[in-house]
């Protein structure tokens, strides 16, 4: 998924080369439709952005345990769902789009997690067996994103390539009430997208979907179903 970074970020990092600034001013102005700046204004804005610290300058380790307001995220997520709902034709399409949004979060989160692991432990390990990768997602990813490890991890009895991660009370969907005519929708499709991106990044391509499996004790219990592709199981057998 190509994602063009705004060029203003590069100009903060390298404030030495003047021609870099002038070349980056062009694409910045067309991207954000600002009036074409003269060389004077780019120089002054360059100085201002160099002295003013942005969120990108914060050290990545310091923000490890910082938290985001759940209410703020709930409003953002609610708006994301409403935005997507206006542009889709059905429930599967809505889940797929939420999954895509989650995928983008997951790729970035995998990078961040690996980077942070390197500074924490002396010998950071890269998972090459898929069960270990699932365990890592079950504890580390869930703890990092939601603040607590997932509740259970299960293997499907019917198929060898299906595994399930279970969350009894997913925090992102806590305030969402699905209308009765859309009862098969699970907004945890966002979480499924995050898991899919992490597995893809680690080298275990899979199809990940979210299903709501309410019980009496936990009415909002959700299962993230992971269906690995054939080559993952073949590779696993070869490694045994």
């Amino acid at each position: 998924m190509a994602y063009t970074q705004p060029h203003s970020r590069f100009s903060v990092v390298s404030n030495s080369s003047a021609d870099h600034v002038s070349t980056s001013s062009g694409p910045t102005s067309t991207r954000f439709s600002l009036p074409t700046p003269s060389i004077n204004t780019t120089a002054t804005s360059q100085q201002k952005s160099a002295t003013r610290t942005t969120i990108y300058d914060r050290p990545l380790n310091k923000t490890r345990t910082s938290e985001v307001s759940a209410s703020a995220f709930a409003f953002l997520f609610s708006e994301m769902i409403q935005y997507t709902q206006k542009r889709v034709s059905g429930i599967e399409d809505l889940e797929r789009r939420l999954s895509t949004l989650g995928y983008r979060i997951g790729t970035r989160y995998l990078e961040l997690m690996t980077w942070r692991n390197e500074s924490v432990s002396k010998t950071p390990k890269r998972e090459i067996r898929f069960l270990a990768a699932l365990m890592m997602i079950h504890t580390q990813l869930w703890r990092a994103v939601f603040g607590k490890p997932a509740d259970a991890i299960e293997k499907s009895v019917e198929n060898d390539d299906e595994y399930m991660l279970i969350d009894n009370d997913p925090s992102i969907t806590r305030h969402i009430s699905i209308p009765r005519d859309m009862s098969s929708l699970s907004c945890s499709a966002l979480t499924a997208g995050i898991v899919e991106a992490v597995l893809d990044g680690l080298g275990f391509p899979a199809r990940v979907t979210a299903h709501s499996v309410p019980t009496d004790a936990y009415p909002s219990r959700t299962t993230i179903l992971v269906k690995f592709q054939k080559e993952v199981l073949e590779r696993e057998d070869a490694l045994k």
Partner: protein
Amino acid sequence: MAIFGLWVINKAGGLVYQRSFADGLAHLTSNEYLVLAGTLHGIHAITSRLSPTGTSSGAHVIEAETFKMTIFLTATGTKFVLLTSLSDQTADSVLQKIYEAYADAVMKNPFQTPEMPIRSEGFDARISTLIGSGVST
């Protein structure tokens, strides 16, 4: 010491949520509830102009012989009306908690259009735990 009913009225005066708890109020049709809610909205607006001491919000408590009505006006114009028995002293705190439940289960729900009738299981469940089960429309 009983809570008889809860009404939620949007800023235009339309009833968006109505629920009865203990028996004690006459049973009305949903159309009658709508009419009463609109009337209450108008009365609330008029009483805010009647204050002899300058600016005031509308009526806060309306007491009758067998029940009293506590009205909580939010900053956005939504009214939460709690119908309780005369001896009930907890109406204000209950209304605050109902407002919290509203902010959580209704406002953060992407399937809820603002100012439209509330059809949310989450809100119903939270009101049930707060007050007790009842019959809602």
